């Protein structure tokens, strides 16, 4: 229990530094927010009043404190670009879209990676193994925006199977939502699929050489059963670590895919805000993403104990 408390304290410290960094970075931004809100050509007094009202004349640390104490209670301020909506509302609308895409991408990657890795590992060194290995290595070298454009070219334009650049909310129509989300999710899945398959295959090959696998085989269990019931769980350890490591990339490809397919998620929101110099928006979004990221990583750390009993009692 003490370990958990310590870890949470560490996470809070990290988030504190992140928030300060994000705040500092965006305060250094050139350009006057008052001009951004009002537009050009107003009398100077109006700009000065607005600056006073926004608190831009206060010292940096006080502004940081104001922003942070607001952020903790859920008040991230309002967007600078019309419509000047509440940042938290916008994030609340965008986050579910991004989460759905990321989770779908991860699920697709896992569903495909596990059987592919098993197939590869069962015939290690054979033609299938080499073919899968080579294609996964190839996929790793295709940046997600390029993969997205190619898939759009093939599936939306060539074959006309999937629509482009629309989003149907899950609450409106489940079928419509899945139809619109599938192609973007596949793009997100590709890179993870390649990594997962490679890592799981290598781990499976190591596990398959262990004595308990030999014992299971000697009992006459069919090979697929040995693979699924005996080999998979002990081999999934690096896979879980890898999911933690690749989470950052997963978020990155979600951003790109949302931009590419013009989906109303966190990614397209943050890219647009960055392009327009809308700093309260960028600050809020970065902080929320960092929060999710850190929380999920911590969750993955704790899941080791479940997967591998050997790590349960070890004190770091």
């Amino acid at each position, binding site marked *: 229990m003490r370990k958990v408390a310590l870890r949470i304290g560490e996470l809070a410290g990290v988030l504190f530094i992140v928030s300060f960094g994000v705040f500092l970075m965006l305060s250094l931004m050139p350009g006057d927010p008052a001009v951004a809100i009002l537009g050009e050509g107003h009398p100077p007094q109006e700009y000065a009043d607005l600056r006073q009202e926004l608190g831009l004349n206060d010292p940096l640390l006080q502004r940081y404190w104001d922003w942070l104490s607001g952020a903790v209670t859920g008040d991230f301020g309002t967007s600078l670009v019309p419509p000047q909506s509440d940042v938290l509302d916008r994030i609340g609308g965008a986050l579910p879209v991004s989460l759905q895409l990321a989770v779908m991408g991860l699920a697709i990657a896992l569903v495909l990676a596990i059987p592919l890795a098993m197939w590869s590992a069962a015939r290690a060194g054979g033609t299938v193994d080499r073919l899968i290995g080579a294609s996964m290595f190839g996929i790793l070298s295709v940046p997600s*925006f390029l993969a997205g454009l190619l898939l759009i070219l093939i599936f939306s334009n060539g074959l006309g199977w999937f629509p482009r650049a629309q989003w149907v909310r899950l609450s409106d129509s489940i079928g419509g939502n899945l139809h619109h989300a599938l192609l973007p999710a596949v793009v997100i899945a590709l890179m993870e699929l390649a990594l997962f398959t490679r890592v799981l295959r290598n781990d499976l090959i190591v596990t398959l050489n262990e004595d308990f696998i030999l014992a299971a085989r000697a009992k006459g269990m069919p090979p697929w059963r040995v693979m699924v019931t005996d080999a998979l769980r002990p081999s999934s350890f690096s896979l879980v670590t890898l999911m933690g490591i690749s989470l950052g990339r997963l978020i990155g490809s979600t951003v790109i895919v949302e931009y590419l397919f013009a989906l109303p998620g966190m990614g397209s929101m943050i890219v647009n805000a960055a392009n327009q110099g809308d700093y309260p928006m960028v600050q809020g979004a970065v902080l929320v993403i960092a929060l999710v990221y850190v929380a999920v990583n911590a969750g993955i750390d704790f899941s080791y104990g479940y997967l591998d009993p050997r790590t349960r009692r070890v004190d770091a």
Partner: protein
Amino acid sequence: MPSKKALRAASVNRTRLLTVGAVLTVVGLALAIFGWSTPSLLLGGKAVLFLAGVALLFQGVNRLLQGVLGRRVDLTLWLCVGWLVAIVLAAILAPYLPLGEQNDVAKTLLEPSYTTPALLTEHPLGTNNQGLDLLARSIYGARTSLMISLLAVAVGTVVGGTIGVIAGYFRKGVDSVVGIFTNALLAVPPLILLIALSTFLDPSIRNMSLALALLTIPSMIRLARANTITFAQREFVMAARLMGATRMRVMARELVPNVILPVFSMAVVMISALIVAEASLSFLGLGIQQPDPTWGNMIAEGEGGIMEDHPHIVLVPGAFLFLTVFAFNLLGEKAQARWDTRSAKL
């Protein structure tokens, strides 16, 4: 002495290798040329034929080489090295090469726009909407991309490596402070950090390199630190200290030369990640701006319905990007397998 039987088996084997290799090479070459040049087929069909041809060609040449040289050659590795040498040379020599116009629209008013790639013409890889030559733009794009990524990796490796060695050698207070900052940097997903940075940095080559270097620093610190801790416990470090070496000397003469190999192989792997990051940022419109070409902003030109009619706008820079990233990935993987067995597993 190998027996006569073995020798004969080897020569039969060699003849077979040569025949199969030759057949595959010819068929592959034919398919590839056919796929590339036949105008009547659909784009998808052409691409499939071309790729199948290239795959057969690869297998064929591989077998031929094995037959002629009598040993296995890692053809992929050599092709990757060849591509990288070619692209780096082209990028360095770009201003002296007889290339078409790459960014001055005023000079291409009379040039045709959206010509499709046709080798042996004035624009071997076609032109874009303003008649700018895609080959020239791809090579100048390589110049920008490679310069940014290499600068960033160099800065990141030197800074991150130094901090990592210091943290790993001194431990205690220094280590915890460094640890907190690494964790804070790693707590923001890389692309998000880049986007946040791009809101207030001018997208110049120098700023892009610094922003990307910031991404590489935390992982470099971690790697250098972990390796330093392992090496610091070894006998040769103890020996140096007992002989009265200062801490500076121990780090510079004993630790750095050992830590440098895994750090170097990590750097090679990172180059490709940085090329992708730079391209992604330019694609999002937050990196190097038009009309200066980078692979990312060239690919972005295909957006908004243009790619559908003129796929080569996306495919040409996309191919350059893919081949370069692939080559660096492969080299990085080989380097890690050789010099950094620990990271190579992941």
